[in-house]
């Protein structure tokens, strides 16, 4: 037991490259002030990918419908700001909490299934929510999106055109959620999750309640995805139906796999590369963008099974 806790303690130590990475996230404020809006989009996408990483990378729940929680959080924050009050921090927490409730409710369904049935169920639940939001246009604005979202200043700072407040806000929330995730996966609970991912049947046999653990992590991931959605609402002042779409679920999956699933930084690195590349290619027809993303996916699955970070890690090991 002592060696197990020693193993966990060794992993949780903060390495210099991590500190360097988080310091580098402050660079956009001084180096590329014109791209702060993009930077805040990247931070939001990274948070969304991080939440998928918790369930997919660590617990092995393959989801094709994770955008359901992102969109639910986005609409909750949007409706709050439109009808009640526009203060962002309380809106963020409330959106996260309500999304967590939805996540907890659906987790009872999701953890009972594996393999194809699981993929199809998450896909189906995602599509169901998308259609519900599309049909309930009196509430959500339907295909036109939710208009008239008024977000109040954050702690006295207004959401300016340059995206300074937006980026600081998104980055701070991403960093906090990252710290929480880091703590979770390096705890005995996180170790149990990885055990469940590797062998669902054996874990209960050695005394770990698989389904209860899976429900817990699924709920946590839903809270984070909902907060990512709320961030998007607060920083853009609109909510579109696209936040719930299958395309968004597929995108975040691509981002996570590209960066490397089951590694804390996988989603963040994937989001950075994906979003910057899409921004650079956006002048060209979006159809061709998908051509390259498709080729990239094929190449990653064939040659880099653990994503970019996995590939880098293997290189690092070889060079030593």
């Amino acid at each position: 037991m002592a060696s197990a806790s020693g193993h966990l303690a060794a992993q949780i130590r903060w390495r210099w490259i991590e500190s360097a990475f988080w310091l580098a996230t402050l660079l956009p404020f001084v180096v590329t002030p014109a791209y702060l809006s993009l930077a805040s989009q990247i931070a939001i996408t990274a948070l969304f990918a991080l939440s998928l990483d918790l369930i997919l990378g660590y617990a092995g729940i393959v989801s094709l419908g994770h955008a359901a929680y992102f969109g639910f959080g986005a609409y909750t924050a949007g409706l709050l700001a439109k009808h009640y009050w526009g203060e962002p921090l309380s809106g963020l927490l409330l959106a996260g909490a309500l999304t967590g409730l939805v996540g907890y409710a659906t987790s009872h369904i999701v953890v009972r299934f594996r393999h194809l049935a699981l993929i199809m169920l998450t896909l189906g639940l995602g599509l169901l929510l998308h259609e519900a939001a599309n049909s309930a246009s009196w509430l959500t604005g339907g295909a036109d999106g939710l208009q008239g979202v008024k977000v109040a200043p954050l702690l006295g700072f207004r959401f300016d055109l340059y995206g300074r407040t937006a980026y600081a806000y998104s980055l701070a929330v991403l960093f906090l959620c990252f710290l929480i995730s880091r703590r979770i996966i390096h705890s005995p609970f996180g170790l149990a999750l990885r055990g469940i991912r590797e062998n669902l049947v054996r874990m209960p046999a050695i005394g770990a309640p698989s389904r209860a653990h899976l429900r817990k992590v699924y709920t946590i991931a839903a809270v984070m995805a909902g907060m990512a959605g709320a961030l998007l609402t607060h920083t853009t002042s609109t909510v579109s139906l696209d936040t719930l779409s299958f395309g968004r679920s597929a995108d975040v999956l691509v981002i996570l796999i590209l960066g490397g699933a089951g590694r804390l930084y996988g989603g963040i690195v994937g989001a950075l590369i994906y979003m910057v590349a899409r921004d650079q290619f956006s002048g060209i027809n979006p159809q061709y963008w998908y051509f390259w993303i498709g080729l990239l996916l094929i190449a990653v699955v064939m040659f880099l099974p653990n994503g970019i970070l996995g590939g880098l890690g293997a290189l690092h090991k070889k060079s030593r």
Partner: protein
Amino acid sequence: MQSFIGVLFDGFAYGMLLFLLSVGLSVTLGMMNFVNLAHCSFAMIGGYVAVVLTNSLGWPFLASLPMAFVAAAAVSVVLERTLYRRLYRSSDLDQCLFTIGVVFVSVAVAAYYFGTVQQPIDTPPYLRGSVELMGVSFAVYRLFLVVTALLITAILIVALEYTRFGAQVRAAVDNQRMARGLGIDVDRAFAITFALGGGLAGLGGALAIEIIGLDHAFAFTYLVYVLIVVAVGGLGSIGGSFLAAAVIGISDMAGKYYFPWLGAFLIYLVMVGLLMWRPAGLFGKR
């Protein structure tokens, strides 16, 4: 009452279309456990082949249908032999991602060559219009669709139940290791089945243009429907796919007719409900 029969018939015809599009995926998934999300890309190939042959080269519509089958089958077998076979032992997730990549590429290629507009197709005059039967009018094209699908189902069932090759395929679906142990060439059986499944999807894609249209995003739009049919019907079960396709087609059509404000909500609800009730599908064994 008349409109009820009409909706039932239209839904059934639509379901038969879904059956053609998805039966190949059901069999290959049951056989090799390979999650091929790019199945509808083969349907798209068939559709575009039919469009080019009839509109640009002036072929008759009926003659373009076998060509759609052949082209899609050829492309699918080439893909299977070169790329897919390397992934048979990979995880569900890897297969999903790889084939989503194939879908992205095929959608982009279709947009590059054909643009993003809906492709029209000239159906011959004898397939247009409708016939009246006991006070209810039936569209001729949909009748043609139903007859074709029933014919293909009959051929498939006979081929799988009463031929030597069919017995090999069924053995491989049920227990691949045992089938190999008995000396059945599973790889060959799989390649042929895969080509057949791709070809049927291509035929379905060509037949679908008149009913649901064809554009560059077809491989994505109908992927969901095909997956629903396969998951609900159960892997490797032709009868299950047939029944599932009919149920999904009719409930989708009835939903759009009687509850238009619900949109596609109903069909997803049917799918989630059926999956929760029977995770392995209506006729699934696992």
